């Protein structure tokens, strides 16, 4: 089961997490990204490339499913304006064993950061600036690019 959603509405993580608990699943992993509430940001505004975004996320979810034999992979990304503390993104995976679910979840959020066409604009009161891409995100994504199998057992 692959599910990819780009939405304006707030993300309901409890519904998403529960939906991953499918027959055969021994482990469900999730990652939720939040607007940091501690760095002076008053609004996070997220722009995306409609159509291309959904295609990129579907490609990632399919790649993770194939590589780790997932039972389910879900990616939900919010766009538009959001406040500190709100959820920006949810990634969830289900697999027979925990290592597959955990590795696939980390893979999806790492790769999403560099491969899905979203752009963040931070507002701090009247000041607004586009967030710069981080080299560290490229490094994190590159970890998964080599066709290395996990160093953890399943």
């Amino acid at each position, binding site marked *: 089961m692959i599910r990819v959603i780009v939405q304006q509405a707030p993300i309901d993580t409890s519904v998403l997490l529960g939906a991953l608990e499918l027959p055969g699943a021994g482990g469900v992993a999730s990652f939720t990204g939040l607007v940091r509430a501690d760095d002076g940001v008053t609004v996070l505004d997220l722009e995306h490339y409609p159509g*291309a975004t959904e295609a990129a996320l579907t490609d990632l979810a399919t790649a993770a499913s194939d590589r780790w034999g997932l039972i389910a992979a879900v990616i939900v*990304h919010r766009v538009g304006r959001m406040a500190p503390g709100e959820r920006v993104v949810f990634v969830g995976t289900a697999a027979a064993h925990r290592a597959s679910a955990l590795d696939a979840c980390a893979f999806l959020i790492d790769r999403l950061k560099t491969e*899905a066409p*979203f752009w963040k604009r931070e507002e701090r009161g009247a000041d607004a600036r586009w967030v*710069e891409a981080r080299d560290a995100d490229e490094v994190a994504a590159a970890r998964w690019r080599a066709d290395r199998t996990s160093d953890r057992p399943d």
Partner: protein
Amino acid sequence: MAVDILYFAWVREAIGTGAEQVTPPDTVVSVADLIAWLSGRSEGHRRAFADPDRLRAAVDQRFVPLDAAIAGAREIAIFPPVTGG
């Protein structure tokens, strides 16, 4: 041939529009050629495209390097490195 050009984030803001249709001459072969050619359209284009190292592109919704050919493309998007997640 006419092609739809899309801009996102600060590229869109600098140019002042998110989409336009253009008909580049035959000498425009790659995305990089297109960017150089588009730079002449306005002061906003020139500013947005001043540093091609800061630009990324997609042809028909697939990410491509800037030296990719644009022959046959219907939609070309030009934007900064992505920052989602």
